[in-house]
């Protein structure tokens, strides 16, 4: 969507420095990206910024944010982001977590259940799937892993190009290293999170692509059961990276749910 004026800044929060992109007006909405990092510009972000004050920080150790060597868990990132919100004076945001970012969003929600307007989890990691396993980054090639997140490979080509650049490959390696540092064992889930979710009273929307080959849909159903006030939406003909594969469909779901559509 042309015309969205994104501002880039570096914000010190939670003992580290974060690369932050921000655009739009309205109620605050924090978008948390995948474990493969994020591009600066994506149509999904633009579509949200048309209706909200959208904040897209790069996770510590991912993409353009520096790596805090001390960090040891995904919960640490959630705490850093709680610090970021407080630093920026942002209260009661909606949290939109994409894949791995969904795990961070869920952790943030459990930390301060009152300081949250809506929770949106899209193909979220963070829970042990009752059936199936989360795809193992460590044994899958760089390109194969990201391609696995798309039902339609043309969508991958559209976002990254059919042959992603060496810069992109290098970035994926950096992100991968950070994921290993903080989510190695148990791999990509928390054993305590499902219990803590009971305190999240804010309305939650759990979205899953019907062809998610990264996080089994059973994990989504488990989120819906664990969250007191959640509903489940399935996006058809879509893989794990719903935000990149069907940005308009997902933006519509999110905007409607948050109450701006």
């Amino acid at each position, binding site marked *: 969507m042309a015309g969205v004026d994104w501002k880039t800044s570096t914000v010190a929060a939670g003992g580290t420095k974060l690369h932050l992109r921000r655009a739009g007006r309205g109620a605050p909405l924090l978008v948390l990206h995948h474990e493969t990092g994020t591009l600066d510009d994506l149509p999904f972000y633009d579509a949200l910024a048309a209706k909200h004050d959208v904040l897209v920080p790069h996770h510590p150790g991912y993409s353009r944010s520096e790596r805090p060597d001390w960090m040891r868990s995904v919960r640490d990132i959630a705490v850093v982001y709680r610090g970021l919100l407080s630093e920026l004076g942002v209260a009661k945001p909606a949290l939109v977590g994409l894949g791995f970012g969904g795990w961070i969003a869920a952790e943030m929600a459990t930390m301060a259940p009152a300081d949250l307007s809506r929770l949106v989890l899209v193909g979220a990691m963070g829970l042990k799937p009752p059936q199936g396993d989360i795809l193992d980054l*460590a044994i899958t090639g760089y390109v194969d892993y990201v391609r696995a997140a798309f039902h339609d490979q043309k969508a991958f080509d559209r976002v990254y190009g059919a042959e992603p650049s060496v810069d992109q*490959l290098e970035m*994926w*390696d950096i992100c991968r290293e950070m994921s290993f*540092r903080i989510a*190695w064992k148990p791999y990509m889930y928390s054993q305590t999170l499902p219990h803590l979710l009971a305190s999240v009273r804010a309305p939650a929307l759990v979205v899953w692509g019907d062809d998610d080959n990264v996080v089994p849909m059973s994990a989504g159903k488990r989120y819906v059961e664990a969250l007191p006030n959640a509903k489940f939406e399935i996006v058809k003909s879509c893989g794990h990276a719903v935000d990149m594969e069907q940005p308009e469909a997902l933006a519509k779901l999110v905007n409607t749910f948050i109450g701006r559509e």
Partner: protein
Amino acid sequence: MHLMYFTEQPMSAYDEKAGRDFGATALMFSNKHFDPVAGSRLYNNYIEQYMLAEEVGIDGIMLNEHHNAPFCMQAKANIFAAILAGMTKKAKIVMLGNPLPLAENPIRLAEELAMIDMISKGRLVSGFVRGGGQEQLATGVNPAFNRERFEEAHDLIVQAWTKAGPFRFEGTHYQHRVVNPWAVPLQKPYPRVWIPGVISKETIIWAAQQRYPYIALNTSIEQTKKIWELYDQVALQSGYVGGPENRGYLIQVHISDNEDKARENAKQFRWMQGEFTGLAHPVWSTPSGYGSPTNRRAFVEFAAGRAINPRGNTSFEQQVEDLRIIYGTPDQVVKKLKRILEQTRPGILALWGNDGFVSQEDSLTCIRLMGQEVFPAIREIAKSLDLKSPFEADAPVHLRYSKDLKPAKAAAAE
């Protein structure tokens, strides 16, 4: 000169075609292709090889370990070390080595090694390695902390060996509130530690800082020289002068009484589809965070199939040309080894004698000729070149036990 026999202990009975069809012979290549009947026979063959090696007068038996792959059957080097500690009488048991980061409890390693040292009556050389990338994945260990875990586990083991317990160890990756193992090494201050490696500069630097001998694993003469250049430079900075007693070298050498047979058997050094660790996906052998960040860009290009392997995968002929594979009768082999000794001046030499499908009979012949004809000649050459092993040079076990340290400038002036 310290002269050793080495074999990777190949699981040669696996189905090669299955490996090619699957496209990998490591990590994810199913263990249904492991035949324990053949495994039992092969393990006992290897014991027979080691016993003959001792009988024909080799100085050391070099052991190593790998996981989830047919190229090496030793899943725990300490098991073989323990067997040899009891069965052999003279040979050093040289572990090159225990992969420290794989240990969740390094104190257990310290105990096992101390037991091996006592049972063998002080014949243990306790090398340590980081373990290959696949080793981390095969054992569920975080590759991103590999080097940190290596150094920290090393420090803990050395403390467990040298400091009276009980004491407490609060590290980043290892926390032990009670360290007090009731098994400590016979050798004092502690068994010699040698560090094998292939390409990581960080490991060469670390070894030189500790004054631990570095064992170059089958590198080309040019690569080996570069390794010593770096080692010697760090040695000077640390206050000592590097020499043959700091240098070890492992090379693939097959010896026979017949040149043609030697050549055929030497081709078996390429039996694992040309890569000695077999075929594997690059992200398995170098998981993110395992390698040096300076190699990141070159590595991702290779991993995505856009660049050649930075480690190289050269043909048999080229490796013979580069003296990375040597074969022949004892006289032929000695001549070639002499060139290596002259050019790289190691004080420790390991001959990797047999691989793949080399028959037990030919393996034993190779070992016999190694001990009875090649090594005596090498010892004479080493004497004339003044290539002393750490034992002959009475080198300190670690930098901190040095009595000859000089400020970096004075050392450099020597």
